[in-house]
């Protein structure tokens, strides 16, 4: 077959591949050790439920502190609410119950790790462009996202429990399958896995959070420690201290 006769077929095949595989995307989640376990289930009497106050949400992304969004807070509270362990939940900016009530105080830490493979994406982009987009179907892109969650719950008598979970996933996509929603989907799936693991752990300690599990602390003057925040940056950072230099004539 001559090149002239084969060219239209090649163009058609290329267009077909671009229109199908070139628009494909999928998300791969790293299976967690908890995936095979059956869902834990406990019961708690309604009058045994106590409220939960979200004291603090701390988020870091690739080690850099971030502002927690209202959306993130709502998602965390919603996930904790779904367990059914607590009578009601309040956010960090909501007035909580008085100190005389039995309450659980929560501190939540989310550490996100994002690897968009920017260097690879740039090179692949150049190759795809140079091929006039013919290689679109053959060169996939990757975007990695991992989350580590730590939850500390403090009971009204001062006892604390720590829970941790982690998950990771990769969005694989071809050029025309990329959308901003895709990254949100990936983050959503990873976060959901983490929160599910967390709630499974929490359910196992149902009796610990029941109102009758411990008496309320003696009424009196309760104190909290007031301190400055410790620096969270680590690694090859240097503190630059301004100094005055005096030169002699």
């Amino acid at each position, binding site marked *: 077959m001559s090149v002239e006769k084969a060219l239209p077929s090649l163009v058609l095949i290329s267009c077909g591949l671009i229109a199908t595989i070139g628009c494909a995307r999928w998300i791969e989640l790293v299976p967690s050790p908890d995936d095979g376990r059956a869902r834990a289930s406990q019961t708690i009497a309604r009058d045994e439920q106590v409220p939960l106050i979200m004291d603090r949400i701390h988020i870091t992304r690739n080690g850099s502190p971030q502002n927690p969004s209202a959306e993130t807070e709502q998602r965390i509270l919603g996930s904790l609410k779904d367990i059914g362990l607590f009578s009601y939940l309040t956010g960090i900016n909501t007035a909580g119950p008085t100190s005389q009530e039995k309450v659980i105080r929560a501190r939540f830490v989310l550490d996100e790790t994002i690897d968009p493979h*920017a260097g690879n994406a740039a090179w692949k982009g*150049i190759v795809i*462009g*140079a091929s006039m987009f013919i290689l679109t179907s053959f060169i996939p892109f990757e*975007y990695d996202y991992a989350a580590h969650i730590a939850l500390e719950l403090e009971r009204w008598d001062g006892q604390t429990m720590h829970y941790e979970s982690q998950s990771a996933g990769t969005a694989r996509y071809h050029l025309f399958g*990329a959308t901003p*929603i895709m990254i949100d989907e990936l983050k959503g799936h990873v976060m959901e896995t983490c929160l599910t693991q967390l709630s499974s752990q929490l359910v196992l300690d149902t009796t610990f959070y029941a109102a009758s599990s411990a008496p309320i602390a003696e009424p009196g003057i309760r104190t909290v420690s007031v301190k400055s925040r410790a620096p969270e940056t680590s690694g090859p950072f240097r503190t630059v201290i301004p100094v005055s230099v005096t030169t002699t004539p």
Partner: protein
Amino acid sequence: MKASLFFVIVSLGFLLCATVIPSQAEEIVPRLTVGTQEVGLSAGYLLPNRLTTDHTTKQSGPAFMPSWAIVLTDPIGSGWYRGQILLGAEIVYIQFERPEVTHGVGFTPKIKYLFEGTHRLRPYIEFAGGPFWTDLGDRVPEESSQFNFILTAGGGISWFVTSQLSLNAGYRFHHISNAGTSSPNLGLNSSLPYGGFTFYF
């Protein structure tokens, strides 16, 4: 003809701005993430660059460039060069008015680096290249064939009117030649100052 086309382009741009500019003052921070796409339209006027004494043709005329691109990376780098890479394509249409009325049309994949700049003002550099057909090709001493290639390099600035719409102004250097597929092949070099708008979604 040329003036009316420019008027149409500019009017379309301002009309688009008027319909999407927020009525209340709000902070405009374009959030371009991986997968964000842009479509745009630019128009400019091609001016000749005769780089050697063998180049005699003073080709000139209006150029129109509808374009598309997709954001490939989150912001990379640090400091003044921090920015994002976009991959896209555009159609280049040039109506040569000199040395005689002829036309040229090409399709060029392009790669663009969009600096982070300030929130609203984002400079960029771009490079594009692809096939280009023009009936000027066999009518000037620099080019012997109608089938050519066009290479483009340039830069500009994007002013974000809203978080999804920017007005752009820039400069490009164009080189048109046939990659040695026929002789002579001196090539036509041009400067192209242009303006336009881009919509992000």
